[in-house]
């Protein structure tokens, strides 16, 4: 039964590790990092920030929420997307038939 014991040992260790990570994550979320979230929220409201600073290559990827409707087709209608980030951002909902 040695191999079986080792197998169950590995599974139990992995489950415990996963549980510890998830609980630790939860604790972090509600303790120190929660205050960072508060600080970030204050930063956003004080400075009037609107978007994540992830993609800085073009104005419509730097501020996706502020981009005008023609940003992605600024050269000509149906022009190919210039930037890889444009491939990550989903088309607006009205194009997906999910009109509010």
């Amino acid at each position, binding site marked *: *039964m040695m*191999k*079986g014991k080792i*197998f169950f040992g*590995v*599974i139990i260790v*992995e*489950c415990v*590790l*996963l549980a510890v*990570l*998830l609980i*630790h*994550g*939860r604790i*972090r*979320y509600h303790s120190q*990092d*929660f205050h*960072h*979230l508060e*600080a*970030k*929220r*204050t*930063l*956003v*409201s*004080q*400075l*009037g*920030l*609107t*978007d*994540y*600073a*992830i*993609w*800085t*290559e073009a*104005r419509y*990827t*730097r501020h*996706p*929420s*502020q*981009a*005008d*409707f*023609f940003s992605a087709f600024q050269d000509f209608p149906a022009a190919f997307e210039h*930037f*890889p*980030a*444009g*491939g*990550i*951002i*989903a088309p*607006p*909902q009205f194009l997906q038939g999910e009109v509010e």
Partner: protein
Amino acid sequence: MIKHLKIIEYALSSLLRRKTKIIAIFIAYTLTVATLASVLFLTHALKTEATHILQGVPDLIVQRILGGRHDLIPVDYAEKIKDIFGVSEVKPRYWGYYYDALTEANYTVMGAGDAALELKLLDGKLPATEFECAVGKGVAALRGADYSNELILVNSRNIGVLFDVSGIFQSDSSLLTNDLVLLTNEAVIDFFGFEPGRATDLAVTVQNSNELQTVAVKIKKLFPDARPITKRELTRTYDMVFNWRSGMMLTVFCAAIMALCIMAWDKATGISAEEKLEIGILKAIGWDTDDVLILKFWEGVIVSMTSFLTGLLLSYVHVFYFDAFVLSTILKGWSVLFPAFQLTPSVNVLHIFTMFFLTVVPYIASTVIPTWKTAVTDPESVMRG
């Protein structure tokens, strides 16, 4: 119970006899689960963080659209918007983009307005004079501003302007401030050469959030060239950007699922001659079809559970402890300034169950079904091939 334990013991011995093949399946399976889980963990964490921190964004942003493009808005609009019932405050925002030829990076230059001078996530203070600036961690690192405490930028008149760095945003806020150069409003107007009485857009505060849409409609009616963007639209943008159905995320997701399907298909379409021989011998020495199926079920469980849990652990550590360094190279695109993802761990348990049913269940099924086909055949013909 004892029977199952003994079958598990036998299943493990059987798997160890096919060590090389099983290790290859384990690696492929683990990587597939890790990729899937990393995408889900990263997008969920970014989305959750966006939902929390973007609660602080202005209720309404009013832009001016001219010829289909965003244009500077007359500050006079603010007075008329302020008269709309329900609007409590209208503030002009001054901001723009700056291409730094020296580092080939784009910065966002923004006016600090009347923000409090000291912020928790800012080491130092916000700019108080026209020749002071606060910069994001990315800008500071790229321009060495954290050592020199100076930043030279070329303004719209092609004149170099020297700014003293009064503060640097902490790396915890990089997701928001990495490319930011914060000046006073007056300095931004002068730097970009904005026409007098014009701002980039207007930030509107509405007392009752239920009236946001009504106020937006009234603004649109009052100024047909205006484009009001509500807080809800703003936060929903990030729901969409990091939705698992969006662009590249979906591509990564599909690629991983396809890899798993190919693996499951390969298993489901037939079992090796060696495995057939093993089933034949087991049947010949008195094992029931049920026992053989239980054996194969446990083999599937052993491989898939070990791989699934290892994949989950790897992805969690990758996303939340190593700042998603593999996925961020995909996300980075052409950004010269790219923030480090120091994300607050946030996992949707439903995602874990979905992944379990998408990966473990099909694998076990694809292990048991072909075995059943072989196990119901006469052992002699199975052994003869």
